[in-house]
């Protein structure tokens, strides 16, 4: 393997790992959202259906930044766009 190619591959691997730092944000955000939803259900158990639905949609939206990071990481590992 050429030296330059090896450097690019190593860079891609490190970059994929760094891209997954994006997972921190959604993790914190979703945890916070679920905690608040639990509080809301504890306070008003009859609204649990609506609260759960809203929470899932909110979690899905919060998750998208993490998914973008995941897609970048997958591209770097499997498609190797820079080699």
């Amino acid at each position, binding site marked *: 393997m050429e030296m330059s190619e090896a450097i690019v591959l190593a860079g891609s691997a490190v970059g994929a790992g760094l891209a997954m730092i994006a997972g921190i944000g959604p993790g914190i955000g979703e945890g916070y959202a679920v905690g608040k939803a639990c509080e809301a259900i504890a306070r008003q158990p009859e609204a649990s259906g609506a609260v759960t639905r809203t929470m899932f949609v909110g979690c899905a939206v919060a998750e998208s930044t993490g998914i*973008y990071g995941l897609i970048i990481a997958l591209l770097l590992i499997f498609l190797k766009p820079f080699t």
Partner: protein
Amino acid sequence: MAILAIPKVLQGPEELSVDGPKVIKTFDIFGFQINFTETVVLEWIVIGVILLAAFLLTRNLKVRNVSKRQAIAEMAVEAITNLVRDTMGKRWLWFTPYIASVFCFSIFGSLISLFGVRAVTSDFSVLLSWAAVTFILITATKIRYGGIGGYLKGFVDPIPVMLPINILSEVSTPAAMALRHFGNIAGGSIIMGLIYYGLANLSHMIHLQVPVLTVGLPAVLSLYFDLFSDFMQAFIFIMLTMVFISNAGPADDEAPQTN
């Protein structure tokens, strides 16, 4: 030295490769390369399964002495109707068939991966086309209730400087929806592939000819990555579709009566 020859299929994956869906045939239409892929075949299988299920469940409907089949069908229809009514309001009830079909297609399309084939929803073009349909519906709803002028005026709301941001947010809605569904399913299948590959290598490392370690742990993880996340993503996709479409129209009380 292996004393017994162990069949290739039992030795576990030898190498890890991630490819797009297999291209079966390429058509050349007006200079465009149109690929006829594995996904199209699987989609038709999924459509066939859904049609068959719908046909079997809705035969011999009765008012009295309801059969089990009919009870299941009624339960499903009622659940999805209630979901649409709760999320979008009464006057959007005519959207129920579309929402239900997207939900079924998404679930069956993802769950087909349990049979060892590629999930339909891990092909980005499938999700992008569903998201494009949602985008068309949102735009059509905006034009229907606000007129062409109102729709175009929405882009320079509240000040004209916001024009690029508004265009970006309009385009990013379907793109984010498609990427979310695709990322979850494709990412899940890649993670499962990595786990199988890693466990097989681990068993070879401790000189087991058959990768025994791949029994057990993947099954537990598959519950999350295949079953839970498939249902979740299908649900989230239809929820977002419903929320975006009903938000594109006016609020419930000031709505003009259309039907």
